């Protein structure tokens, strides 16, 4: 299947901004046997004075751009085609959580895929008692890691209400959990803290969802903007699995990965810094269609 993805992010400044710099992470990744980025284009308006591409620590494609002159809005357009492979046959070969912990202690690899980076905490996701208790209540030591991940993800989905007005991009996971409301970012952050409290390596995934459901399916939450979900490590044989707590589903061919990180701050689509005295408004629009 070939997905055509289009993203538009616009920033409007109340006062003209100058000397701005942005770090953009929106381009889908190429992942062996799963997704293959083919044609792609990232445009920034106004045309930046300087622009460069790089790959960050976790292997995500990044674009740096700088605007010197005054401007009142900045727009980022991304369009690309991604070839999505048919789903792999999948079965649960994950370790029990206790064995998983013992394996983690023997790991000595600090490469970008190493579970060691995902044991937490991070400055953005400190441990939280309420979330830990929530996870503990659901935890079955005799079950596999993956079974526990799915149970916790599903329970979190059921406990939370999707509410785009309850939180912002800066809301703490602990606060969102207290409200039992939030968006995909909050769902994912809470789930990461929950899994890490049990010693399960867990990370943040940013990406895209197909806009229209397959025939007979339901439209997924979060398809009109960039989406986020969770990945968890089930041991050397299982490797990483991905779970979308916002939609209570294991990740299949409806999800396209753009970035892997420890939390939102590692993969935020646009990180920016500018000199401006006023506020700013941001908009984002996404369209993901199957074109072949």
């Amino acid at each position, binding site marked *: 299947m070939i997905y055509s993805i289009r993203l538009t992010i616009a920033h409007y400044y109340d006062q003209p901004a100058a*000397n701005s*710099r942005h*770090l953009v992470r929106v381009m889908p990744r190429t992942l062996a046997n799963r997704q293959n980025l083919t044609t792609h284009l990232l445009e920034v308006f106004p045309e930046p*004075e*300087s622009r*460069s591409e*790089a790959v*960050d*620590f*976790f292997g995500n494609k990044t674009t*740096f751009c*700088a605007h*010197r002159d005054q401007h009142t809005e900045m727009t980022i357009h991304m369009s690309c085609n991604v070839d999505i492979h048919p789903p792999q046959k999948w079965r649960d070969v994950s370790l029990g959580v206790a064995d998983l912990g013992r394996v983690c202690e023997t*790991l*000595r*690899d*600090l490469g970008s895929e*190493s579970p*060691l*980076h995902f*044991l*937490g*905490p991070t*400055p953005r996701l400190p441990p939280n008692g309420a979330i830990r208790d929530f996870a503990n209540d659901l935890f079955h030591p005799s079950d596999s890691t993956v079974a526990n991940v799915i149970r916790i993800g599903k329970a979190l989905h059921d406990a939370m209400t999707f509410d785009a007005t309850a939180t912002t991009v800066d809301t703490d996971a602990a606060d969102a959990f207290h409200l039992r409301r939030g968006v995909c970012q909050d769902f994912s952050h809470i789930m990461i803290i929950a899994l890490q409290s049990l010693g399960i390596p867990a990370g943040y995934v940013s990406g895209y969802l197909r806009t229209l459901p397959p025939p007979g399916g339901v439209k997924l939450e979060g398809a009109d903007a960039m989406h986020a979900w969770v990945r968890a490590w089930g041991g050397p044989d299982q490797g990483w699995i991905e779970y979308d707590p916002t939609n209570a589903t294991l990740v299949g061919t409806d999800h396209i990965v753009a970035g892997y990180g420890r939390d939102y*701050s590692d993969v935020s689509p646009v*990180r*920016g*810094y500018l000199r401006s005295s006023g506020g700013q408004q941001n908009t984002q629009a996404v369209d993901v269609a199957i074109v072949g």
Partner: protein
Amino acid sequence: MQTQQSSAQRKTQQNLLASYGVQGRGQAPPNDEMLATNGTIKPVWSSFFDHLNSLTPQDLAARFSRGDQYLRDAGVLYRQYDETLSTEREWPLSHIPVIIGEDEWQVISDGLIERADLLEYILGDFYGDNTLVSSGQLPAQLLSQNPAWLRPMVGVAKKGRPLLNALSFEIGRGPDGKWWVISDLIEAPSTAGFAVENRIAMGRVFPNFFANANIYRLAGYFQDFQQSLMKIKGRTTGEVALLSPGPMNQNYAEHAYMARYLGLLLVEGEDLIVQDGKAMVRTVAGLKPISLLWNRLPSTMFDPLELDSNSMLGAAGLVQAIRDGTLKTVNMVGAGVLETRALMAFLPKIARAHLGHGLAMPNIATWWCGQKSQRDHVIANSARMMVGDAFSTVPLMADPHTTTFDTALGGTQSQQLADLLTTNGHTLVGQEAVTLSTTPVWERGQLVARPMCIRISMGRTEKGWSVMPGGYARISAGDDAKALAMQRGGQVADVWVSSPKSVNTPTLLSAPKTAASRSATHALLPSRAADNLFWLGRYVERAEQNMRMFRAYFSRICDGAKHSDTMPTYIRDQLMNGVAPDATAIAARFDEPLALALQSASRINDRFSPDGMMALRGLVKDAKALGDTFVPLDDIPVQISSLLRQVTGFAGLVHENMYRSDGWRFLSIGISLERAANMCDVLAACLSAEPASGAVDLALEIGDSVVSHRTRFQIAANSMSAADLLALDPQNPRSVRYHITRTKDHIANLPTQADDHNMSHVARQVLLLETQLATSQPAMMTPEALVQIKQDIWAISDTLNAYHLA
């Protein structure tokens, strides 16, 4: 005679030593810098001790206060942080040095150099191949869960070697007489500058002794370090700058001092911008490239775009400039990971694997509780352990969060500790609570022994590491080694390395090579510094103006006028913004600008003369005293006149002593524009008043031009003669025109960003105003015209700001 002398001396010596015991018990301290175990003075201390003995208590008191006076005058302060506010405190110099013989110093230096090389190797590995982790010499979590290990810097290390160029260490002497490293100060070590200031102060305390004693001087070290910075910069055209967190940082005074001493540009994050992949500094002459930053920010704060996004201290894009190879830093950004406490637990093993032998100078014994064997050791020996955060970079003994488990520990508590270590072991370390050696300090007229440790700096030169021959000691406030921090009342002392032979005495000022680079760097004026100088000028002038009004007001009150009389009411309403008829409120009108002036000046510590700072501090203090304390009415004019003399003295300092740099021009422009605008206000108010009211005389009085008027005009003052003298006279340094002309001359000499033939916008504006004033008649100086002129003056200020200071 001679016998008597020496017996007298012996007597004092006994007295000096009588109090020098453990906790006042009169026993010799067991592990002391000055006394050997048998209670005799160690040879390296003996000549100093004799010198101390030769001085009377009165002599000593006078000398100690001379040293303190130097530190106050030089503005050496430290910031004390409370829950809510930070205050500046006097630098707590202990006036007794710590003396160490050169042989022992050599051993210390060799040990620290070995350690520095090991740290360089480890840092390269942390940001490179990670073999220490992959080979199992270091637990992976110490990096993967370490907030000081900066992932954006991984892979960058390959280009920038050596990664470490300036280090400090804190060392202490254990009960066995051997030295231990207490902490590695990798990031923003604040040592060297304070050591120099201590040394200069000590030169004032013991001038004769110091000149003749064979004590290693510090200047040679800085010469070497300065040259190595220039070498790291290489053949690039960019500047070398010291990046400071700014005046609110406790070590800002040291940053300013080092920048001035080494001839570096002192910059803050807001001065920097990355353009076309290059780090640039905003100066009054436009953007200028920076090639090397001596970074004194915590690494995570260096770049809000790629590191801590909450950082207000760094500049966006700096990490990318490093990656692109256009910017170098001392030390490598991310080097702070080496300060991680838990790393100390593994250094001995890494040293044995890398060097083939243990470290000549070990660090304080440390156990990481993430490993069972180490954890068990901490639990079993908890009575002599300190326990704290494994990833913190604050030395454990200086950290208020450190837990000690000593004699008071009951059974439950020790069980709690064991539980905590088992569940959260990987976030905790145990460190042996050390007993430090003691050194003499002077307390209440006696020598007493206090625990101490020493901070030592080293810099990389062409010939390898160069260790500063001296340093500064931190001395505990009591018998407890944990009270070393100045925040908790500890003191600092100068460390003297003494030689049996004569030592050479270099000084940084004599090296011609360094003098050349100094002048080149100082020609650049960062826009922020210019802005602060401009405001310094404006605030001081505003204060002076308001002092003159205060004097005019109270001279009338002292002559018997009531606050409610016509003239006092007129002055308050028309000239003082309707202030309440109250001395404190009126005094606040100059107190506040003076406080702001001091604030501006302290932000540009590196560009403003110590004499100027001293004058300003005195002014602020005296002005505040006048506002705060009750001054009898009759004394007010006298007091305020004395303040006015001080403020004029400050202006004199600016115009007689300051180098005619761009910085001086901005300061002078600030004074001129403020004075001209204020004079417009005074004239607009006074010239519109009833001719009989005395308002014209008031204007002349505030404008300090009563005498000038008498010489220039043979008539009693009227609105025409006052307008002529105070608005249009080109020779009167109190007139509007005089200051517009001066501003015009300054602006003509500023570095311009436009091409040579076209006048800049601000130059055009000020020339137009000057021409208008030059061609005006006194009768044209109506209140409306004066208000317009004032608006023109502030328009010039706005353009100047947008053009040079933004």
